[in-house]
């Protein structure tokens, strides 16, 4: 497990995103109606800043003239060449078996739980090695300490 605290939840309200740097890589965190997704900010095509792209839904069809539009907010379009990626899985719309971007598990954790799992206060970058694999992310490394009153977004870099 490589779990990183990447943002305070209220910084990424529903319908918004935030690009953070975690362990040397940029990751986009998206809040879709309260559900969180994390996607690497590097397009598998030509390394475009994928997470700066347009967020839309899935358009599909079974016959000419028919349009299905669903999963609104879950499809990310690269700003460079408009390839579409499913935020849930990282799969591209076309050739899903071969073209995919790294997607990570993102979830909400309460400040209380984060602090509780850490023997040393998780408020400084040079905190003692965290318990249970919990690695303080850049959010903590910046200036804001994790506090028990708030909820945080954590990303597991080893998940998908």
């Amino acid at each position: 497990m490589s779990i990183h605290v990447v943002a305070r939840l209220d910084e990424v309200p529903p319908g918004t995103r935030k690009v953070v740097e975690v362990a040397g890589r940029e990751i986009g965190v998206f809040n879709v109606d309260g559900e969180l997704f994390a996607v690497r900010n590097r397009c598998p095509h030509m390394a475009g800043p994928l997470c700066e792209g347009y967020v839309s839904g899935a358009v599909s069809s079974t016959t000419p003239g028919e349009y299905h539009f669903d999963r609104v907010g879950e499809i990310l379009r690269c700003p460079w060449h408009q390839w579409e990626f499913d935020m849930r899985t990282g799969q591209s719309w076309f050739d899903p078996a071969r073209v995919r971007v790294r997607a990570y598990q993102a979830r909400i954790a309460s400040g209380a739980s984060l602090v509780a799992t850490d023997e040393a206060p998780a408020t400084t970058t040079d905190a003692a090695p965290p318990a249970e694999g919990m690695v303080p992310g850049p959010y903590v490394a910046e200036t804001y300490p994790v506090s028990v009153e708030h909820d945080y977004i954590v990303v597991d870099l080893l998940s998908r």
Partner: protein
Amino acid sequence: MGEVGIGMARPAGAGIVDADVHCTVPSAAALFPYLADHWVEQIRQSGFSGASENAYPPGIPTSARPGSAPGDGRPAGSDLDVLRTQVLDVDGVEAAILNCAYAVDTIRNPDAASAIASAVNDWQLAEWLEVEPRLHGSLVVPSQIPELAVAEIERLGDDPRFVQVFLPARSAVPYGRRDFHKVLAAAVERDLVVSLQYGGFPGNPPTAVGWPSYHIEEYVGMASVMQSQLMNLIAEGVFDAFGDLRVSLVEGGFTWLPSFLWRFDKDWKGLRREVPWVRRPPSEYVHDHVRLTTAPLDLDTHRPEAFATLFAQVGGADVLMYASDHPHLHADTGDDWTSMLPEDARAPVLGDNARAFYRLNR
């Protein structure tokens, strides 16, 4: 064994299928036995000489190879015995796909267009297909009026002597558009190939930028017409809408295919939301549904490496069908260019692809 005409590639091998040979209606009167009295009277009385508009002007050297006219005043392509001698009786040739480019799309009276298309088909049946079983026919239809084209396909499309529907490559509206789907459906229902063929007289220019000045521009430019039609067919989703649709591109060249499909695939990835019914990369539809004939040959046969590279990029072993295009003469060298085919591509290109595509062994 027959004598090949000038400019014939004369491939060596067995089981050869020539995927494009032509027959020409010699005169309007030749159709009289197949027309209702009313139309015979109209044609006689009006002096109408038939839909003899020809995308291959008779006097242009590319239109007829020397020796392909019967020598009695009738035009090249109008005599079955010449076709036998120059194509069918040549060693190794097993069958040929017969195409008649009678320009029913120039006839503005819809009933006349319909009647004359039917007459041409009955003429093909009686004077070519019935007497020469090595020939497999193409239905002429009034392509400018989809309902009437469907009616003709319904009338004769179940006859096994017809294997495809002939559509002139140049059209007023591209063939993938929805108002034409009924024609595609009628062909698919009868297991007929839909064939886009050099030529057509839709009334709009043969280039996308307007009217050119010279025949050579229409002749060379037909490749871009084929591209436009193929692009439209794919963008309109017909290959998923009609899963068994097969399309042949005849006399439009094929070396443009790799660059065209590379670009089309690339942009499909970014723009496919506009056409969500295009569910696969365009190149996959071509591979699975489209075949192209080899004449005119639009690559240099004197540079073997270039030939091999282009052939591989086209996926030639999978999508190309050998054709002589008799009696047209495309300034091909007359050398047997097919000797340059990779060994494992010979049988597919010379016969197997066409046999499978046209279901010739059924």
